[in-house]
């Protein structure tokens, strides 16, 4: 695994997280509680692995940022996604912990109360993580200027 391949891995982990979160949401709406717990647990694992890889990648790059090569109005679109993703991603670990603890204590009313904030944010962060990757690394690959 080279440094250049890490963004693709991170995007895959994001995508996988998104699938697990969505599945977990669908399952609880169908009142399939065990499936919900399994999906959400998988989502937490993939998100945690993602976070580790993401931090590693940026640490290895020593703060060198990849510039977005788009020109014109696609720039505000990209930066809207990037900034909102980054800001909201910072809140996800806190929200997830606050959501899981009541569930572990069987305080499901409280669990639901916080989950209604966590779900949209966590899902958005996963989806936009993939979008940012595609726009930054796929639309403008290295060497294409």
């Amino acid at each position, binding site marked *: 695994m080279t440094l250049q391949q890490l963004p693709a891995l991170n995007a895959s982990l994001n995508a996988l997280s998104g699938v697990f979160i969505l599945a977990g949401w669908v399952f609880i709406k169908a009142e399939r509680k065990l499936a919900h717990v399994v999906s959400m647990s998988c989502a937490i694992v993939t998100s945690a692995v993602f976070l580790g890889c993401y931090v590693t990648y940026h640490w290895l790059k020593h703060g060198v940022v990849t510039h977005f090569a788009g020109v014109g109005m696609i720039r505000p679109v990209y930066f809207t996604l990037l*900034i909102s993703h980054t800001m909201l991603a910072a809140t996800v670990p806190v929200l997830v912990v606050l959501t899981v603890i009541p569930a572990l204590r069987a305080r499901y009313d409280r669990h639901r109360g916080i989950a209604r904030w966590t779900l949209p944010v966590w899902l958005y962060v996963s989806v936009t993580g993939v979008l940012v990757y595609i726009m930054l690394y796929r639309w403008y690959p290295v060497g294409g200027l």
Partner: protein
Amino acid sequence: MNPAPMKKRGMAGWYFLCLTVAFCAVGALWFELKNTPPPLQKIRQLSDFKLTECRGGDVHLSDLKGKVWLADFVYTTCPSTCPMLSSRLAVLQDEAFKNDAVRFVSISVNPAHDTPDVLRPYADKYHAKQGKWFFLTGDKTRVTELVSGGFLLTMKGAPDGSNDMVHSTKIVLVDKAGVIRAYYEGAVADETHRISRDIRRLLRE
């Protein structure tokens, strides 16, 4: 329990999300409008030229029609500025290696000394790809005509008659029609990022 309030409360997270994204969108749009680069003016049309590439063959202006290209002015016995300029062009060559519409042209401002055989090792040092990054030399009159007459830049021998040249450290951006569109100061600041952006803008023309 009345289902309506439950549903409304369940939407709170989504409303918060939309609000956050809208806020970021406004900020991003404002920032972009504030930082939109000025249009690249058509500064000057270059006339046809014919110079010798150090690896063999001639290069005419017509060979560069349809390409967006950068020009810089170097000489092989240059103490420090030319290596820096050539390194900058090498970085840009790497960024554009897959893009066939981009070219790089380095012109020797000491063509009497920098014959093709002398220029070639200099070009090789910066991994100038044949057919992509041209290193040009030739008859002094013709080179002067292009550098001074075409690009409107300085090119003269040092007062003490040594092989140190007085030359411009500018990097010039030329569009697909051979029109000069921008000059960048190669010696002072690293404008590589701005240069790539402007090349991309011209590629879309």
